[in-house]
């Protein structure tokens, strides 16, 4: 790994450390907030990573997350079980994934169009079905108790709480998230391992770079791509379920609020790599958390209007992208259906 590849990591860690030194408690809260905010981004980003590494571009992450948020909240409400909700979320996103697969793999259609369609479909269907089922204008009733994923306290969190450095980090930051957050973070090394250490990963990356090489090696391109698209569905499903049943308590229409697109940006930012994805999404989470904590930056002579603090994460993203992160080369066969015979 060269310096340029780790720039995001360096920037992110530098921000964290400086912040912690400047204002420990605020940093603790802010970083904790960043961790929560980044989790759906990270899940969606990894979802996109599998799909795009296999050569299937996916701008429908937003739609899949939204659908999953809806199905998970509905089922969690109806059954009172967050876990069933999670399963439903995954199922919801999977269905859209399969549509995407059908369009872009089987019927060799345009992947961008399919993604756009999926975003529209989710945005319409969730409200339509929700309104039909619950009559709350697309909202689902609020979830309570076991219908939600609740924060869990890790072992020893209380014991080490008062220790310097370790205490705030372990008890304040690491502990106290919902299980899905830990799942998301565990998925980073897992994804790296799957991608770079297993046969499946090798083939997956190969099919995104040169499907003909996989085909002539006697491996089905179609099956691999469907597998990737399905994994993408599962992960966006978890992301959606996290939004609706862990971070909030129910579905609100359009509640993904553009996070799918930010995840896409993070994926490109991360150059389609799992560790970089972690840091890229962390950066987005962190910038948002900072903007949340300091909504009225008073520079003495002038107070920065709230609008600009709200836009700060986006502005900084552009600056960092332009300043530090080099050209991002997508998987070579990305976006192209694999067509043998013209």
């Amino acid at each position, binding site marked *: 790994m060269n310096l340029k590849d780790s720039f995001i990591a360096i920037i992110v860690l530098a921000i964290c450390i400086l912040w912690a030194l400047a204002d420990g408690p605020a940093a603790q809260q802010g970083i904790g907030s960043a961790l929560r905010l980044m989790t759906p981004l990270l899940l969606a980003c990894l979802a996109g990573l599998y799909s795009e590494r296999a050569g299937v571009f996916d701008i429908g992450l937003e739609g899949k997350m939204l659908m999953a948020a809806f199905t998970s909240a509905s089922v969690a409400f109806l059954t009172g079980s967050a876990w069933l909700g999670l399963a439903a979320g995954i199922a919801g996103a999977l269905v859209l994934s399969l549509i995407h697969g059908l369009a872009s793999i089987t019927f060799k259609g345009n992947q961008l169009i399919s993604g756009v369609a999926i975003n529209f479909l989710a945005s319409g269907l969730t409200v339509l079905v929700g*309104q039909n089922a619950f009559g709350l204008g697309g*909202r689902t009733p609020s979830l309570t108790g076991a219908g939600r994923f609740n924060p869990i306290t890790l072992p020893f969190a209380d014991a080490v709480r008062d220790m310097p450095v370790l205490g705030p980090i372990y008890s304040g930051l690491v502990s106290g998230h919902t299980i899905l957050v830990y799942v998301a973070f565990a998925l980073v090394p897992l994804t790296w391992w799957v991608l770079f250490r297993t046969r499946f990963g090798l083939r997956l990356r190969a099919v995104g770079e040169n499907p003909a090489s996989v085909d002539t090696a006697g491996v089905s391109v179609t099956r691999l791509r469907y597998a990737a698209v399905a994994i993408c569905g599962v992960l966006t499903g978890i992301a959606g379920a996290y*939004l609706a049943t862990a971070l*909030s308590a129910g579905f*609100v229409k359009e509640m993904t609020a553009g996070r799918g697109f930010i995840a896409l940006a993070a994926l490109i930012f991360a150059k389609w790599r799992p560790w970089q994805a972690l840091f890229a999404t962390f950066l987005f989470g962190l910038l948002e958390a900072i903007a*949340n*904590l300091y909504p009225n930056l008073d520079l003495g002579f002038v107070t920065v209007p*709230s609008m600009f603090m*709200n*836009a700060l994460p986006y502005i900084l993203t552009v600056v960092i992208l332009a300043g530090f992160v080099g050209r991002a080369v997508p998987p070579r066969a990305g976006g192209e259906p694999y067509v043998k015979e013209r």
Partner: protein
Amino acid sequence: DPALIFDLGGKFDKSFNEAAYMGAQRWVEETGGSYRELEMQSEAQREQALRRLAESGSNPIVMTGFAFGDVLSQVAGDYPDTKFAIIDMVVEAPNVQSVVFTEEQGSYLAGVMAAMASESDTVGFIGGMDIPLIHKFECGFAQGFKSVKPEGQVLINYTGTTPAAWNDPVKGGELARAQISQGADVIYAAAGGTGIGVLQAAADEGILSIGVDSNQNMLHPGKVLTSMVKQVDNAVYDAFMAGTDLEPGIKVMDLEAGGVDVAIDENNQELITPEMQAAVDEAKAAITSGEVEVHDYMTDNTCPAT
């Protein structure tokens, strides 16, 4: 038949539009009448909706939201025999009733209650978008809060700058947590669907929240301090009741007229101490009598309290 047009947020927004809807429903229940309702999908439809309703004989036509103001002022003249009512905006025309609420007054009361409930002397305000209407809420709230705790602090956040800002409970929750970390122990949300996330986060973190527009106390019984209710339902109900006799002119739904209030019901009874109740009553009296003048942000685009 009367007609009701909802603004872009849609009729089930759990706050403003929904209140209007409730008012219409109440009218249906009581009179057995029927009415037409429309939800906007785009800006260009506003005029279309008004004209189509007017041409098809609906009367009166009630619309929610300041965004109709401009269009109504153009259209009203073309249908002199139709009565219009617009909520949250003043349109000067002989056949238009403009219903305006003194959100600042209701928010003032909410501020007073927040100040009394707060132990940290820090409270929060979370608005949807940074627009004048929301500043009205914010400013009244801050003034009410400062009237009790002049040295206290009001934290202010706005969710975003796109329409998504009104439908982002996740962000609402995070903003609430950010304010909590800075010491806020009562948070007032005026942010549509985003507010649902604020109230949820507050309940999760064990602090109090204040709902807006509709009575949201029942969302988290015992954890929502109160809701600053804006009786849009009453306005709609009244307009429907008045029918074609709807009186043109400006109708100010202020505290005195029962247009705004803080909701106290079985869900938040426990939270309301006698002193708090007394303070609220006192403030109400002072406002009604003119003894206390709650600053309206709209008059000069400033907020002395923040």
